[in-house]
């Protein structure tokens, strides 16, 4: 697998990141190096092996389905880079 400029563009768009000029050359080089390293996994025969997803054997413990108000609206807004008394503020979305 080789990562090229086109694929980096697609991935960056999915990840909502931007790589330009030097940063782009560098990320292409790094991803290619890392991918050729992780492709070593193909040496292992995994036919018939189920993917391991959950690490804890006993069934997950849940809590009762009761809504608790733990964070007030004020608190919820408090860490936003821009907000008013009711809403998060964003740059104009619809032109």
């Amino acid at each position, binding site marked *: 697998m080789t990562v090229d400029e086109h694929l980096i563009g697609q991935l960056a768009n999915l990840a909502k*990141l931007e790589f330009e000029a030097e940063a782009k050359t560098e990320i292409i080089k790094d991803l290619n190096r890392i991918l050729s*390293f992780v492709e070593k996994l193909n040496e*292992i025969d995994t036919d018939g092996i189920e*993917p391991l*997803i959950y690490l804890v*054997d006993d069934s997950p*413990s849940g809590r009762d389905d009761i809504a608790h108000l733990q964070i007030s609206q004020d608190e919820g807004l408090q*860490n936003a*880079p*821009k907000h008013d008394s009711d809403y998060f503020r964003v740059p104009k979305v619809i032109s």
Partner: protein
Amino acid sequence: MYRSLAETRQALQSGKTNIVELTRTYLQSIQEHSHLNAFLEVFTEDALRQAAMADQKRQAGNPGKLSGMVIGLKDNLCYKGHKVSASSKILEGFTSLYSATVVERLIAEDAVIIGRLNCDEFAMGSSNENSAFGNVQHPLDKALVPGGSSGGSAVAVAAGLCLAALGTDTGGSIRQPASFCGVVGLKPTYGRVSRWGCIAYASSFDQIGPITNNVDDSALILEVIAGQDEYDSTLSTVPVQEYSQNLAFKGKTKIAYLKDCLESEGLDPAIRASMEALFDKLRAEGHIVEPVNFPYLDYVIPAYYVLTTAEASSNLSRYDGIHFGYRSKRAIDLETTYKYSRTEGFGKEVKRRIMLGTFVLSAGYYDAYYSKAQKVRRLIREQTLATLKEYSFIIGPTTPGTAFPFGAHANDPVKMYLEDIYTVQANLAGIPAISLPAIKHPSGLPSGVQLMSAPFSETELLSFARYLSALN
């Protein structure tokens, strides 16, 4: 400075000091060692207030289990009303709205929370060179890294800036810096300690654990922070034991070492020799120490990187420049709010991992990379558990070498990733592991011995770790 809670308690009981005075001494020490850059922030007022309350409770005759213990928090653990940043610019200015379960449990037992500790950004790194707030220095040599990602935590304990610290371990982030700095670092079984309030890196790997000067203090902290919590559904129902009361190790045991690990090319010959000497010592004490095969050693790091970056790319999608944290000044619409805020807010290594994670999860590559790695993870777990059915412990070096110079792996991410080659197995398998400062390297630098054991066997792991520490 006192090196254990037992020593601290003695001093408190004899009236030589009180917890407020003790806390002031640590605050002073932090100031004198500010060049280490271990602390990102010191909670002076709150720490002194907690200390005064702990003194009152002592005088009233009802001290908590951690009375007298001054603890630092890795900067990825939330503490209500205090800043937390995961050492990232993207969370600059963020204030926790609630406390991590572990923090609540520490405070409930009268621990004093003294400040937050530098780490690699979002716990991604093995040298603490990835912090947006500067490198942490090794306490013995300013040219060397302290290890990572919990570098600040290990340095703070080693340099006596606090008695203990909490770190998080996703692939070795507690044990590797503990090994480099000559302290004890414990990664509990996955599902033993609540992750609520821990800023997520890779959710099926992350565990919170203590970094201390000795095994006893780690056992006590684990006892306090472990156990069920309705905010983390991945916790096990296996009962928490009184680890600190069951530290006496008796009898003879069977210990395995991974032949592939001891024979691996990258292992420092002096560490190999010390390990072999340790094996002989254990045999002389009547224990069985035998080599076993672990054919997956070369695959642990590849599997780890595919899976953790996938989980990270998903976990870090919440940093959007809207709900909290950093927003780019160049943001003019929704797309640029996301893109520029994330591009400017995240550091290079974090972006690298998000990109790799995005790749392995994307249509067309998911099965070949992500599912493949999940299958390999099962094989690694099964092989590891099979070994631990026959043997009580797996022993080996924590790290292939001692602390390395800053910039040593600057141009090759893969080389940096290989620093974790002996530690990631425990995270892939979900088992507990501890690093002990039990090797004397000829360079004078610390180097750790790692013990791993079966899931939820922390009592056995800690008691044997304590025995091993005394043996040296």
